[in-house]
């Protein structure tokens, strides 16, 4: 039950993009096409879960040594290395998967969603299992927002959006209205 609440909370109520403002750059940047958005969501889910596990372990070390202020540096170092590692391995082991996800990987290093979720997992004092679920749920939330959003943008490509609003501005307006709609889920958990 606890886990289900975590999932609903992260996907709908505190959607990572629409209410937490994390991962906005890829949200705006790679949401032009639905297929790209799906690929990106997959890649994020993959990295987010692994990163949360690894940072969880790093955090144990930091706590043991009593140097919590090293969190940012160690997390980002670990995440950067991890992303690169995943990329290298994926390229060799499964070129198909690499084609689908790999091209998004570099973008993910500098995606605040990953680091953000890792830090949130710590701040919420989640245990490892809940942390993984939390990370995955956030990735799903990210994917949900991203794919929905890309659907709308794809449709708008065929519409007559006024010149000044085309592209990024209108993307933000859509995000705003989506965020408004998602406010309806406030406090359901």
């Amino acid at each position: 039950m606890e886990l289900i609440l975590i999932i609903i909370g992260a996907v709908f109520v505190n959607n990572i993009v629409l209410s937490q403002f994390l991962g906005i750059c890829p949200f705006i940047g790679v949401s032009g096409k639905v297929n790209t958005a799906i690929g990106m969501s997959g890649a994020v889910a993959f990295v987010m879960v692994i990163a949360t596990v690894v940072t969880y372990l790093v955090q144990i070390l930091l706590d043991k040594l009593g140097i919590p202020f090293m969190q940012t540096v160690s997390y980002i170092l670990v995440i950067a290395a991890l992303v690169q590692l995943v990329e290298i391995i994926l390229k060799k082991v499964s070129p198909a998967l690499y084609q689908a996800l790999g091209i998004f990987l570099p973008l993910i290093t500098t995606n605040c969603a990953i680091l953000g979720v890792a830090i949130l997992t710590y701040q919420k004092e989640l245990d490892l299992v809940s942390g993984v679920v939390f990370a995955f749920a956030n990735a799903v939330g990210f994917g949900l927002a991203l794919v929905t959003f890309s659907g709308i943008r794809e449709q708008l490509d065929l519409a007559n959006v006024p010149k000044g609003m085309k592209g990024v501005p209108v993307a933000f307006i859509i995000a705003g209205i989506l965020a408004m709609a998602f406010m309806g889920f406030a406090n359901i958990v």
Partner: protein
Amino acid sequence: MSKLITVSPSPHIHSGQSVEKLMYGVVIAMMPAMLVSFYFFGLGAIYVTLLSVASCVGFEYLIQKFILKQKPSITDGSAIVTGILLAFNLPSSLPPFIIIVGALLAIGVGKMTFGGLGNNPFNPALVGRVFLLLSFPTRMTKYPLAEGFNTPLLIPTNDNLDAVTGATPLGLVKEGLKNGESITSIFQHNGINYTDFFMGSIGGSLGEIAAFALIIGLVYMLIKKIITWHIPVSIVATIAVFTGILWGFNPESYADPLFHILTGGVLLGAIFMATDYVTSPMNPKGQIYYGIGIGVITVVIRVFGVYPEGVSFAILIMNGFTPLINRYVKPRRFGKIS
């Protein structure tokens, strides 16, 4: 021959259907509900409706003329529909400023930002209404009591707001449940009865109170072929089933399906707002998925969320999913090789 003959590709005849006819058809279908609101909320309702329609049409004209530099198309009636539906979603006790902001959001943000009629991904009236709900929660969750023309035309100040307004039946139930009361006691306590829902003598926003008037509108639109049954029916059926399950599970902490369908904006939303062409899926199958989505989200928000009313949010959220539905749910192609 003195004048030139015309050449064009086929077809050379037209059904005669037009955007204007459809939009004014919707306006006619909304008349019963509008009259009921005038009857119960008196001058306040008339004032809210007029101001809302006037500002929607006005903003559309100004934006088209001065910002987008297009030929204004206010005569097509879509802004009027938006104006009336926005008014239908507001309590009759709002100060003018808030109504105007709502209209600006509906038309300016919800519609013209995307290029005007036909291009907007979200229902404009709901964009306006939800923005107001988030921005002015106090005002937007307090409804004048339905006392007919006896209700003086009065816009309460922050101080006497409590005295002249109340909550909707949904709000009362929600609060009661939060306080640990049972459904039966809440109903008794507040004198809730179903005839009132049907006839409209309950607190609420202008358009949501009278089920019978809304249903007349639905029948009119079905006969006139303005809309099809798919969306309204799938929404109502989903809500009935979902709340029915909860109710069967524990009738003391979940209200019955009829209560859920008759109260709040379910009928208003299902009949007039979810059916908005622009923002709903393009084929019957998609429309049914869309309706089911709205139904489920509505109940989730009502039962588990903070808002006593979830239809507006549910429709907006499903508006967001509409492009995906359109992308993946296609009409049955003739001769599809299976």
